């Protein structure tokens, strides 16, 4: 028994028949409307949207087959009603015709009222199912739209430097299995990720949110791109089912080092183009997609490449290379490279590739998510990102500092030796402590830079005894980095029985000031030290003539710090950093 009064449309030219059927239906609590020919039946179907339709075959103006075809042709998700033919022609042929025309059932006269009611009951079941499907579909559509909106809110809108990165993002379904992320490191480097989950649609975009959070938070805290890759991999390994994985390209662009660090794990070749769109380097996939192996393969290294300010780094997913035209031909890397070249000339790589893809594929249905990121290699750090305290202000604060004896709020010491120096980046650790103690603040960005530069100097030149002159050629940075890795490995092996222990000691002392604070930083290393005066003099001369590729780090630190001095033959550096609270500046 239907709970609410369901509506039945009877289409029959015999008024007697209509009366009989109506009476039976009303006994079962149905409302009934009647049409006496096919054409009127179709009209009434449109205006009344009945739940069930009963259809005679032979009628004037339009017969039952034609009326059924028309009704079924306009039945979409919103207005699907089961339709039953009622006829006195019991032949196989008429049965087949009824089904062909779109009928869901057939009842051959004569029939008893019990059989009729049973048939209606069966049809009602179909109608209920249709109703259920309709409301589920509606709900799912709403949910999907909401989720999609949230997803793009969380993922894309918080990316860094959106105005400067060229992006293509064309999902094959409502949800994209591709994600594009960019974030600024505390030291002004930029981290970029382009990733492609297996498949597309909701199933494949579900992993995007945890990855986005990890990528942003770790970048912000100052973790290196390799730390982030390792973390994302183990996260996905735990999260994803066995057949789902994440092909991704990662890059850290360091303007300061004039280098890019790249890992391609399962994407088609990534490219570094110069200003003329010549290919300077191709980064082929070096590692299986993430989420397959519990840990990143230990022998896989980041590609390190020297960059020029006008270079562009381009990552793309297989959706571009494997896009097909009507003839089943692939777009391919040749067409892609040509399209980039034209794009560079026209000043917009992403736009031109999209145009060329559309021309190529014409009206063929898009099979996979298509995405690309095009990242310029320069001008990431603008002056607003680094807060340099004006000298007047710091003088004033130093005076304050000297005249009154300010009490020490806390101090923090970290002593790293041998193996730990190789495996640990202590700076995020230290910054976390500071954030926990003193809360977050923009002024920590400069402190981060100071600590990183001073720590790296102590480790590289002090403990590892690397000469920055190695960096003094355009290709130098890579060889410097290789040498560094080798020496770090030696650190670990020599650990035991080494009379001279390798270490770096970081100590921080924090003095709260009236409208800000002062951090006294001391970093001591186990190295032999250096001729402080000579190095600083040479450095500044080289910097002034623009010849040096090294020494920029210490120059920045000098600008950021209130005082900076070397003691104990250069094995101890003491820096003091003073800041004022932001709201006071404004």
């Amino acid at each position, binding site marked *: 028994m239907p709970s609410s009064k369901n509506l039945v449309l009877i289409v029959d030219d015999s008024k007697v028949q209509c009366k009989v059927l109506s009476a039976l239906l009303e006994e079962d609590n149905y409302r009934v409307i009647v049409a006496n020919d096919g054409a009127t039946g179709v009209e009434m179907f449109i205006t009344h949207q009945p739940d069930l339709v009963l259809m005679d075959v032979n009628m004037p103006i339009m017969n039952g087959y034609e009326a059924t075809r028309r009704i079924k042709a306009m039945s979409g998700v919103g207005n699907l009603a089961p339709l039953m033919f009622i006829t006195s022609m019991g032949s196989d042929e008429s049965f087949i015709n009824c089904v062909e025309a779109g009928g869901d059932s057939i009842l051959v006269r004569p029939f008893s009222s019990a059989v009729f009611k049973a048939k209606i009951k069966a049809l009602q079941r179909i109608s209920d199912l249709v109703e259920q499907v309709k409301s589920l579909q509606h709900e799912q559509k709403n949910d999907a739209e909401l989720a999609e909106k949230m997803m793009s809110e969380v993922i894309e809108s918080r990316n860094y430097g959106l105005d400067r990165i060229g992006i293509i993002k064309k999902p094959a379904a409502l949800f994209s299995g591709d994600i594009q992320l960019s974030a600024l490191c505390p030291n002004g480097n930029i981290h970029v990720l382009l990733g492609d989950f*297996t498949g597309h649609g909701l199933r494949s975009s579900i992993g995007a949110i945890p990855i986005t959070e990890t990528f942003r938070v770790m970048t912000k805290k100052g973790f290196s791109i390799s730390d982030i890759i390792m973390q994302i991999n183990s996260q996905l390994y735990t999260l994803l089912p066995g*057949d789902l994985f994440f092909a991704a390209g990662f890059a850290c662009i360091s303007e300061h080092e004039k280098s890019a660090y790249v890992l391609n794990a399962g994407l*088609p070749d990534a490219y570094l183009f110069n200003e003329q769109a010549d290919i300077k380097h191709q980064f082929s996939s070096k590692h*299986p997609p993430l989420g397959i192996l519990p840990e990143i393969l230990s022998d896989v290294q980041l590609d390190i490449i020297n960059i020029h300010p006008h270079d562009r780094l381009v990552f793309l997913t297989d959706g571009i290379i494997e896009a097909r035209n009507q003839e089943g031909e692939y777009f391919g890397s040749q067409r892609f490279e040509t399209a980039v070249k034209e794009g560079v000339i026209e000043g917009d790589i992403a736009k031109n590739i999209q145009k060329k893809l559309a021309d190529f594929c014409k009206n063929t249905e898009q099979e*996979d998510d298509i995405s690309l990121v095009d990242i310029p290699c320069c001008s990431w750090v603008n002056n607003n990102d680094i807060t340099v305290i004006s000298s007047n202000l710091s003088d004033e604060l130093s005076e304050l500092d000297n005249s009154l004896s300010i009490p020490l709020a806390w101090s923090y010491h970290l002593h790293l030796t041998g193996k730990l120096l190789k495996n640990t980046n202590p700076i995020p650790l230290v910054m976390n402590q500071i954030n926990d103690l003193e809360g977050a603040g923009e002024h920590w960005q400069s402190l981060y830079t100071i600590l990183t530069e001073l720590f790296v100097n102590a480790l590289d030149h002090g403990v590892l005894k690397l000469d920055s002159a190695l960096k003094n050629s355009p290709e130098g940075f890579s060889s410097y980095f290789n040498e560094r890795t080798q020496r770090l490995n030696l650190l670990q092996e020599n650990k035991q029985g080494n009379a001279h222990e390798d270490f770096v000691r970081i100590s921080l002392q924090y003095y709260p000031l009236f409208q800000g604070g002062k951090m006294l930083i001391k970093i001591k290393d186990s190295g032999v030290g250096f001729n402080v005066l000579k190095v600083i003099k040479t450095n500044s001369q080289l910097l002034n003539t623009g010849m040096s590729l090294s020494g920029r780090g210490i120059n920045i630190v000098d600008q950021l710090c209130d005082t900076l001095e070397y003691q104990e033959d250069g094995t101890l550096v003491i820096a003091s950093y003073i800041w004022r609270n932001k709201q006071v500046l404004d």
Partner: protein
Amino acid sequence: MTVYSKISEDGKQLTISIEERFDFSLHQQFRAAYHDNVTPDLTYILDLSKTDYMDSSALGMILLLKDHVQLHTGTLIIDKPNDTVNKILEIAQFHRLMTIT
């Protein structure tokens, strides 16, 4: 049917061959080709010599097969992929995970 499976006469080798496109539509058939086989120490040969195209969900399906093989202490060999298919395996660096001949 484009997925064929065959056990060798000595019962030590299961060969699964895929014809034409290896994509998500073969999910059920592909799984059925090995799932009920729990014989230990079996050599599984995935014959891709007649496969023209493979998408990333096929890679996922191969990973599931690999899990199954490992569970039953078997060996997995990907056999004779053509250039197109090999390129896809190469991008995904699957030779780091399994034997490809």
